């Protein structure tokens, strides 16, 4: 129970810091006061004006909420993939989500963007979500049609093939539409800049369903640590568990990618850090990765919006900046252990 409380506390702390800092709005120390003031039965004079509160609640809050949801989902999905494939280097984009979403977003940018940008609902996240889901559906169809055993390896290889295909089509579309290269590139790097409560509402159901499913399976994912044969001999329907977990993780990842673009490394470095601190039991790694991922992405979003103000550094750049050296460090540690 202590672990969950600490995890929840880390998210709350990161959220308060995330809400407090920004290039405009109230002085940072007034934000915790106004948040307390908004709680029932409490009345504190924070000195925050209505206009400043609007900046906190309408601009920063959805951004923090979205960062929490996306970070939690990518980390949980990464930990789940790593658990079912027993490979610590697997990331949530394994089955073609990233390439599919990238293609969907590219098409949305390329098709009459001047008009679609003014639509009440931006079609880019929807197109990205559809692209991600279609890519994974294709991966699953190919993987199960050609792999008679429906093994995980066949599924992964199908994911590699679909990723290559989607990337090739995306490149083709980009070559035909040079004017949107910059926008697509910005999307690929990941961003939470334009987050709204609408985005939060859009992804919340998918991420909730995905997260609940993955957390319910965490005990069985832990049994898989002894290998497929022994897990099967212990009564686990290995292929079924793997398929359900992969599909649930992919659904949540697709939703996250649709609103945030491709934010790299979160799905690898957060579960790894949790394992280093708390051990490898998936019963602990999965829920704590979710909390840690939420806190990490909220925190990672802060330097991007402050350091280069008024312009913003894409969050994917920030996570990669910390993630790439950490990834190499983990590889080094792994080699040293072997």
């Amino acid at each position, binding site marked *: 129970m202590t672990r969950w409380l600490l995890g929840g506390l880390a998210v709350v702390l990161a959220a308060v810091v995330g809400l407090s800092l920004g290039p405009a709005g109230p002085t940072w120390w007034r934000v915790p006061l106004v948040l307390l003031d908004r709680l029932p039965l409490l009345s504190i004079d924070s000195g925050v004006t209505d206009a400043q509160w609007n900046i906190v609640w309408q601009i920063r809050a959805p951004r923090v909420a979205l960062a929490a949801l996306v970070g939690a989902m990518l980390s949980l999905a990464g930990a789940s993939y790593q658990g079912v494939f027993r490979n610590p280097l697997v990331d949530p984009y394994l089955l073609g989500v990233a390439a599919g979403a990238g293609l969907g977003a590219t098409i949305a940018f390329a098709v009459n963007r001047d008009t679609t940008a003014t639509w009440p609902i931006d079609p880019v996240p929807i197109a990205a979500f559809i692209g991600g889901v279609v890519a994974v559906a294709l991966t699953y169809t190919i993987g199960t049609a050609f792999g008679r055993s429906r093994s995980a390896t066949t599924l992964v290889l199908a994911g590699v093939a679909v990723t290559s295909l989607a990337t090739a089509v995306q490149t083709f579309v980009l070559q035909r539409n040079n004017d949107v290269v910059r926008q697509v590139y910005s999307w690929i790097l990941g961003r939470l800049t334009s987050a709204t409560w609408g985005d939060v509402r859009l992804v919340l159901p998918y991420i909730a369903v995905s997260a609940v499913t993955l957390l319910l*399976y965490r*005990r*069985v994912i832990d049994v898989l*640590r002894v290998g497929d044969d*022994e897990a099967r*001999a212990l*009564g*686990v*329907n290995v292929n079924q568990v793997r398929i359900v977990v992969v599909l649930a993780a992919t659904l949540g990842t697709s939703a996250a990618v649709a609103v945030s673009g491709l934010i790299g490394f979160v799905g690898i470095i957060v579960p790894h850090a949790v394992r280093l601190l708390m051990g490898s039991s998936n019963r602990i790694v999965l829920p704590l990765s979710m909390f840690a991922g939420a806190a990490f992405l909220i925190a990672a979003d802060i330097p991007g919006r402050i350091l280069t103000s008024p312009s913003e550094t894409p969050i994917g750049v920030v996570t990669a900046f910390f993630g790439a050296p950490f990834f190499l460090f983990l590889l080094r540690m792994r080699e040293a252990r072997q």
Partner: protein
Amino acid sequence: MNGLNLRGVRVEYGGCAVVSSVDETLSAGEWLCLIGPNGAGKSSLLRALAGLVDFSGSVQLGGSEIRGLSARELARQVAFVAQDPVLPDDMSVIDYVMLGRNPYISTFGRESAHDRDVVAGLITELSLAVYARRMLGTLSGGERQRVVIARALAQEAPVLLLDEPTSALDLGHQQHALELVDRLRRAKNLIVVSAMHDLTLAGLYSDRLLLLHQGVGVARGGAREVLRSETLAEFYGVSARVIHEQDGTVVVVPQRSHGEI
């Protein structure tokens, strides 16, 4: 408890039979040891009984066919110890033994008080209490084997399958592991089916031997019937002296070929 009946069991890999027409009947508390040269089909037969590979023919436990059982139901009936089991280095002994309770825990459930009692009982019974909280990566070969057997026993299955249970152990630990299995099968009335390469130990601990050659049972019976020099020469291609001790023990000693092989 009723016995285990195998009738015409056949295992194929890619259309090639690796086990053919094996018939055996085992009663509760009996230990059958599969022997035979490498590639004879010992492990494949064990894996078929554990539900890990498809087979044709019939395998009945207590009069019921095991083929129709779900993975969970089968794991309640048959416990399997692989030749080289995967033991995650940073998993504790008690957590590893608890994995054996998986067949009794629903997919989304947690261990019950009864599950914890069963595991605690086994930890005590197998003298694992002193390292119950230690990580698997810190255990010696003999300790690891004891822990793996504890995990299998936690399944509370009437059939225990052991694939080369002593292959990675020194002589002392081989003896300790086999004595432990023998004690437990008598105490719990388990049917034990094991695959072993050490013919002397196989004959010493099991009730019966089944010699497999190219997937076919070519000799069966007690150690005195199966472990014969001419039989070993024919199916192992080995020159061996078979010594019959006064206490009934059969000892197999390979002889130098002096360049004839």
